[in-house]
């Protein structure tokens, strides 16, 4: 099962390596990882989506993260009210004459065409991962040439 964890870390060099090293050394799988600065330049915010077969492994992941000296706090969103989003950029095969069709397909989603040149439309979408999944299915009918995703970011109430 996938779990979303956020980690506040010291904004120092090598911290990302400590986090990723912890996962690889103990055989845990990272589904996605997003890192950015916070309002405090000394602190970075990581949203990590992990694959954990059971509760025990999830517990270990959290405890091991907490053990790192540069980790300030660890929050597990599993049973927490939270909002999560992912940003997607997709290059879709679509001749200009079919633009209207594409727009119809996008209507159900928080998505828009940000550039359309020749036979390629670049689409930007921001949504929950379930919705993104639906969008990608809809786009596959046109043909997705390239897909870039940020991975999930999340914030708790």
């Amino acid at each position, binding site marked *: 099962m996938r779990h979303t964890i956020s980690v506040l870390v010291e904004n120092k060099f*090598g911290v990302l*390596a400590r986090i990723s090293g912890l996962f690889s050394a103990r055989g845990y799988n990272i589904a996605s990882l997003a890192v950015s600065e916070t309002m405090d330049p000394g602190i970075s915010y990581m949203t990590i989506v992990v694959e954990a077969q059971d509760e*025990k492994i999830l517990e*270990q992941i959290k405890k091991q993260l907490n*053990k790192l*000296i*540069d980790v*300030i706090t660890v929050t597990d969103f599993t049973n927490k009210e939270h909002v999560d989003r992912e940003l997607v950029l997709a290059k879709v095969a679509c001749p200009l004459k079919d633009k209207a069709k594409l727009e119809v397909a996008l209507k159900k989603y928080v998505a828009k065409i940000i550039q359309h040149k020749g036979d390629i439309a670049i689409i930007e979408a921001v949504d929950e991962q379930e919705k993104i999944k639906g969008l990608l299915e809809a786009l596959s009918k046109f043909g997705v040439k390239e897909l870039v995703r940020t991975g999930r970011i999340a914030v708790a109430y």
Partner: protein
Amino acid sequence: MIGAQILLECLKREGVEVMFGYPGGQVLPIFDKLYDSDIRFILVRHEQGAAHAADGYSRATGKVGVCLATSGPGATNLTTGIATAYMDSIPMIAITGQVKTFLIGNDAFQEADVTGITRPVTKHNYLVKSAKDLPQIVREAFYIASSGRPGPVLIDIPSDVQLQEAEFIWPQNVEIRGYKPTCFGHPGQIKKAIKLISDAKKPLLYIGGGIITSGAYQVLREFAEKINAPVTMTMMGLGGFPGTHKLSLGMLGMHGTAYANHATMESDLIIAVGARFDDRVTGRLDAFAPSAKVIHIDVDPSSISKNVRVDIPIVGDAKTVLEEFLEQIKKIPDTVEWLKTIDSWKKKSPLKYKDEGKIKPQYVIEQIYELTKGNAIITTEVGQNQMWACQWYKYDYPRTYISSGGLGTMGFGFPAAMGAKIGCPDKTVIDIAGDGSIQMNIQELGTCVASKINVKVVILNNGYLGMVRQWQELFYKKRYSYVNITSPDFVKLAESYGAIGIKVTRKEEVRPALEKALATDNTVFVDCHIEEEENVYPMVPAGEALNRMIEGLA
């Protein structure tokens, strides 16, 4: 002040009296300042020896051991020793030189990404980018190394930083927002634990290295006597409770005593303190202590419920929590029947060996025990020598048994003995070695003689890598694959270094040889030619339940 001087000033303020290490190109400024320093420096013959010596010093004294090496190969040679300390939660500081800051990442001569290499085997590490950061970093490093669950911390210092001028400002206190070790156990959890203990019929204290680290020896003893519960130790816990005490069951696990393992399997309440349910202790996990509830006290939350399901987890310092236990326990469990049962196991299945034919290793260790009256510091290498040293010497005090537990590092015992002797000059320090492992850091004979470190090495010489041979005998149809090992003439070798060597081939020579070794004011190798195919028993085969011992309960 330049960086190198700042570093030494910091070390002095942290109370460092001795360092173990080896010079090189990228630590020249530090060595130049060491020349005038009153910190004692022990020049080893290989950097791995420096790391193990600092580790042994730390284990013997409880202080933070410090080792120092140059960049690149100097640092990578330290790594095995750092990993050894990490697995056994030993406070240690490793200082390494690094190439100049502007050369980092340039594949410069003797460059290695040392903070990268040591990241998984240190509690924390630092690359120092400016001399003015040194005091803060050194203070943090010592604090991190010695608090909570201790461990090694590495400080990598580029040589230009060692030369850089900066003002020395000693930070008044250390405040790390991401690091707040828990000391006091949760009061609610302690109450629940007390109730379980009061109601138990077959309680068992299962203790590990955490008892020794936290200084809980005395309070553990009082608590065990108060609740009248038997105590079994992990290898790291030996000496955490008196081995000669009537409540002691000795070591449990793969080569534990039959009665300790049976007590574990029959117990209805396991009180684990400062131990981590390692696979060498539990045997087959799903068969471990089937009828027991488990209370687990550990300072490291990640050790709890990692391997074994725990009923009452208590995160906290072993000593602090046991003091609470001792104060709060009112209803004492009735363990009379339980202790009777255990006594019958002890009588029926004591540790034993057949004392016939060639010299038996067990006999040698018994003689060491008698001659030192249990007052020596024993270090070991890894393998059969180590297990026999666990079984046949009784450790009554903490910090008297020093061995590589978690990592199982061959070549550990000899340099660790040097460190222990430097830390405890009034103690007799003996490395119980095998002919295989002693050859892994034998170059430290040079250090011992040059620095007048008087340690004794007793080599249980069977011409084999004995533990591997034992496994090949038992589980690989006696197909002895590359376990024969030749040795130099240890007597001549010792003599060529300026130490003393004694060769022993007959049983009646054992005691006089040991007596002579102990009376000699020099490093002595006692080369005991023992029974070649003697096995360590009892033995729980890997992956079996604890009560499925070979040569276990009669």
